[in-house]
């Protein structure tokens, strides 16, 4: 069965402040969706809420992956069910090497007694790192500790390559990447494109979408998807900014969650 990921009327709060105000989005395997939108409109919140970050409380709505209720699952179960989020700000974990971490993540998907052999793992990791043009020493570095912004992003993509997810959410994977790295990361994503894998790419810039052509582009404002279209929408946003969208929809303040503080 082809992958089917459905978000319906998703509302979420942080500290009792509503940030997501009813998000609807439906994705199938093989599709690439891009989410754009001004700062502070709820894009990362959507990604975090989907992954089950404990700070965000889902108050309404449903999320299913191949018919299974994602919101019922613990964070690790969501990941094992096939969800992957490349985070905007990945954590640094001292003392845990990148390779120990990745091996634990792979083994978490396997039955006890069926753990990946060390040799096979190393071969896989070395292969994936090579594709991403990562220095092999990063396997032995502590997880994200002291990584530059771009190195962290590349490391997120490394995890994506090795964990073989069904739904990939990339939150500003392009920020902090130099041009060459952007191409490498895009190549990694394109290589992963397949009929049973869907991508949700959060980005501010057209340039990533020059390398990864989306099937759909959505604009997020005020904690909702307010406009959807094809790749041409991204191009117009790049050229003209968001004012025309706001005008068209009668929005004055596109951000979300600021009203109580104002």
């Amino acid at each position, binding site marked *: 069965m082809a992958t089917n990921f459905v978000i319906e009327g998703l509302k979420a709060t942080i500290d009792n402040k509503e940030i997501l105000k009813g998000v609807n989005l439906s994705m199938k395997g093989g599709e690439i969706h891009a989410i754009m939108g001004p700062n502070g409109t709820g894009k990362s919140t959507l990604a975090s809420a989907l*992954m*089950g*970050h*404990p700070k965000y409380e889902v108050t309404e709505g449903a999320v299913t992956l191949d018919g299974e209720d994602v919101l019922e699952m*613990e*964070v*690790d179960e*969501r*990941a*094992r069910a096939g969800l*992957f*989020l490349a*985070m905007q700000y*990945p*954590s640094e*974990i*001292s*003392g*845990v090497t990148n390779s*120990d*971490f990745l091996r*634990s*993540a792979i083994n*978490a*998907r396997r039955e006890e007694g069926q753990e990946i052999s060390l040799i096979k793992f190393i071969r896989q990791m070395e292969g994936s790192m090579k594709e991403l043009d990562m220095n092999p020493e990063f396997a032995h570095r*502590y*997880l994200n500790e002291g990584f530059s912004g771009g190195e962290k992003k590349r490391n997120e993509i490394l*995890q994506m390559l090795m*964990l073989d997810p069904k739904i990939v959410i990339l939150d500003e994977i392009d920020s902090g990447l130099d041009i060459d790295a952007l191409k490498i990361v895009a190549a990694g994503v394109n290589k992963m494109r397949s009929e049973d894998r869907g991508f949700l790419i959060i980005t501010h810039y057209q340039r990533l979408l020059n390398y990864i052509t989306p099937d759909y582009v959505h604009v997020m404002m005020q904690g909702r998807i307010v406009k959807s279209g094809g790749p041409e929408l991204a191009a117009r946003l790049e050229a003209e900014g968001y004012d025309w969208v706001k005008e068209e929809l009668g929005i004055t303040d596109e951000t979300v969650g600021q009203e109580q503080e104002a």
Partner: protein
Amino acid sequence: MTLQTILPLSAEALKSLSQQKNEPAWLAESRLNALELASRLELPKPEKTKIDKWNLSDYGTYQQATSVASLQELPEAVRALVKEEEATNLLVQKDSGAVYSTLSDELKAQGVIFTDLETAAREHSDLVQAHLSSVVKNDENQLTALSAALWTGGAFLYVPKNVEVSVPLQAVFLTENADATFAPRVLVVADVNSSVTYVDNYISTGDAARLHNGIVEVIAKPGAKVRFATVHQLGLNTTDMSYRRAVTENDASIEWIIGEMNDGNTVTDTSTVLKGNGSTSDAKVIAVGSGSQRLNYTTRAIHFGKDSTSQMTTRAVMREEANAIINGITKIEHGATRSNGEQAEKVLMLSPKARGDANPILLIDEDDVMAGHAASVGQVNPEQVHYLMSRGISRAQAERLIIYGFLAPVVSDIPLEQLQTRLQELVERKVGQ
């Protein structure tokens, strides 16, 4: 007026024990003096830990040990620790006395002495007399006095001038019978320009209450290099009071590697007196506390020598309701010019009821020095747990990774691979839910 301490045994009984063991006169006399001291001295006062209600009188009685001829006859608890191939340089104490002792012919031929301290006191009387109680003095407090009076078994290691011992020498101290005195004393004398690695383990079986009062003294003569590794994994109702102290002479060095893995209340004090110019001390401590343990770990470096350097690192994980006080004391005496003392204590707490208190203390009486400290106490970071879980790793495994990660910088620095593995296993056992 202070109350007289109720002593665990009478002077007559102590005297007759010395006779029974054929101890040299100086030792018998020193024991009696120490017993008398104990009656007048008070318990130590570890910083921020009240020990007056602790079980510190359960010395039991001396019970003669029966030697065994082969490794196979050793108690299971010991065999589990010792690999056959390392059993050539091994000393095992069960309860009050040594039961097994071997040293390779090669080392014997080089003049290395490695035996229980009782035997050493008889066979190498002058050597032992010259050094015993020279580092940790009998009159420091009631515990040091009682150790001096009551110690049994123990270990003595002597490495002659210029001899470099390449294999680790190992000792195991086991308490099985809670009614038997368990007070081994360890004395290491590394002569000029020698080098040696000593590793020991303290283990217990059974849950009956008892006390371990132990003292370690290390004397590193000029240019000597001593690596001293010790792992304490005593059971729930065993109270562990351990003083370890080294003196480093000119250009000598000591490396402490310490695993505090007990399940019972513990006070340990690991110190180096950097007496000589250019001498160095490095102390690495990893500790895991669980249950309702009360723990007090002190590392200390006292610089007298010029150009002396010390490094102290403690990493402690506290779970459940364990409570640890961690003191790091760097003292630089006047005249110890160009000395450098660094220390770092870190505590990771795994539950809201666990407590950790890190107290870095720098006492500097000299201007021309460098010294630094870092201390931190914190909980497992929920963002980190979330990040790991978002890759499919279970919460329990995520926490485990973070805990190992926390200890890793110290553990991975341990130069003996086997000890590294062993400590990892112990950490696993103590943090495993």
